[in-house]
């Protein structure tokens, strides 16, 4: 087994231990960004643009991107 996997945060390659999650990649990338994700100011999306949770699993060569939270999401409560 590979002890470490390579993931890309905003296209920056990072090596993290296998089994680590999105939050660990963010901690490694930039702790302040991680805190902003916890605060809901930013969200994390995958290559296809789908949001992923901070405790989501990562696999080798996964690409994730940090985005400012949209004002309106299709998943928000419909008025």
């Amino acid at each position, binding site marked *: *087994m590979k*002890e470490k996997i390579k993931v890309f945060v905003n296209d920056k390659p990072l*090596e*993290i*231990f*296998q*089994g*680590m999650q*999105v*939050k*660990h*990649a963010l*901690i*490694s990338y930039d*702790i302040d960004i991680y805190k902003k*994700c916890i*605060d*809901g*100011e930013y*969200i994390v999306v*995958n290559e*296809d643009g*789908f*949001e*992923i*949770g*901070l*405790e*989501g*699993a*990562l*696999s080798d060569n*996964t690409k994730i991107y940090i985005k400012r*939270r949209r004002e309106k*999401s*299709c*998943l*928000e*409560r419909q008025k």
Partner: protein
Amino acid sequence: MRYSKKFILFLLVLFLFFSLSFSQTSNLIDIKILHINDFHGRLLPYIVKSINEKIPVGGGAYLAYIINEERAKNPEGTILLSAGDMFQGTPISNIFKGEPVIEMMNYLKFDAMTIGNHEFDWGQDLLQQWIKSSSFPFLAGNILKDGKYLPNVKPYIIIERKGLKIAIIGLTTTETAYIVKPDYVKDLTFVEPEKVLPNLIKEVKSQGANLVIVLSHLGYDADKALAEKVPGIDVIVGGHSHTVVTDTVIVRGTIIVQAGYNGIYLGVLDLKIQPETGLILGFTKEKELKTVFAGPEDKYDPEVAKIIDKYNTQLKEEFSKIVGETLVDLVRNYNEESNIGNVICDAMIEASNAQIAFQNSGGIRTDIPKGKITMEQVYTLLPFDNVLVIMDLTGKDILDLLEQSATLEKGILQTSGIRVKYDMTRPIGSRVIEVFVGNEPLDLNKVYRVVTNDFLAAGGDKFTAFTRGKNIVYGDMLRDVFVEYLKKHSPINPKVEGRSIIIK
């Protein structure tokens, strides 16, 4: 003769066209797949700021209401599935070892769940207990024990809805072998999904399955790769990566869905299936997820609310239970050695058999006064769901960690198994003047077994030398380790004893 052949062919095409059109419009079977994944014991609603800063989301009772509402639209044609990781993650579920989640799932009549990696977090005995108390099957087609499927676990089930035979095949991430405490999975083999799936598909089709659903705890990327590699999958209901797949994804004709995490969303996949061929002729393409809002005006299922209330009341009792006792005040010190840091690190050593333990001062969140210690105090002390990470580090890596500690940028490292003398009058990078591991001076070339938490292991608080670790294994949750230590050693009497000596 040539004309008559063409004419017959024309009539045949016309016949096929009309019969197909007729069956498409009048005989299609409506199947509704409701799905969740990575619920992680989130029985109580909570605020997710990225969704709404004021209205809570999730919660078993609110989720249950939406499930029943959706099921009522197609009671004979609904399937309710979980793609794994249901139990571990919140006090109400952790304290009762997943029991309330099982109760909720039984009440909601889940049809199946796949085994996720976190289903092994408390060992295989507990998994077997859940299986026994569940009214639904646990699936895993790629986990073997002594060459057979796990006891009481099926690789797949075939259920019938509206005369249609539907196969549901469970698959679990092979990473489970490495990301769960080794003792819990050492006797198991996790086979690559693409190696077992073709045969399983053949098997279910030979038993008449018209529709093949893979209930996967593999992660979104792996689901897409699986759909590329293995033909014959109609739908993949996924989990593990916590991906909020708002619109269904199609890979080589396979529909892929995943409902985020923590029960914040319910996946609702409506299929229109041609009974003669089993072909999916229509499906939900957009807005496949429904957000589970839990505001004052949102409806909830009273029966599930009762189940949760019952456990929530018991939780308060459990929180007030005494788990240990201290003869001295346990006091934090962000920039110096603390007796509470020492006892936490001692617990880490005992649980891991490592030589050295490191805990970040920022992860210790309260003081505890002399006297009895309750479970609630432990949760306040260690509120983060950190797990132990055990790794090999060289003496040079350890020195780098201690020099970072000496910057005091993010507080000093609390330790066990090591004694350090810092001279803060010296420049950053040369403040560590003496280090002993046990009774021996730190050898920069020697490899030491070190235990820390997953935050530091990821390089948190700028302790990046942890990321150079080798031979890593994950351990139990730090909070559980600390509780076990208290139960075993109380009354405790930890002291500041010169593990970190600071010259100012």
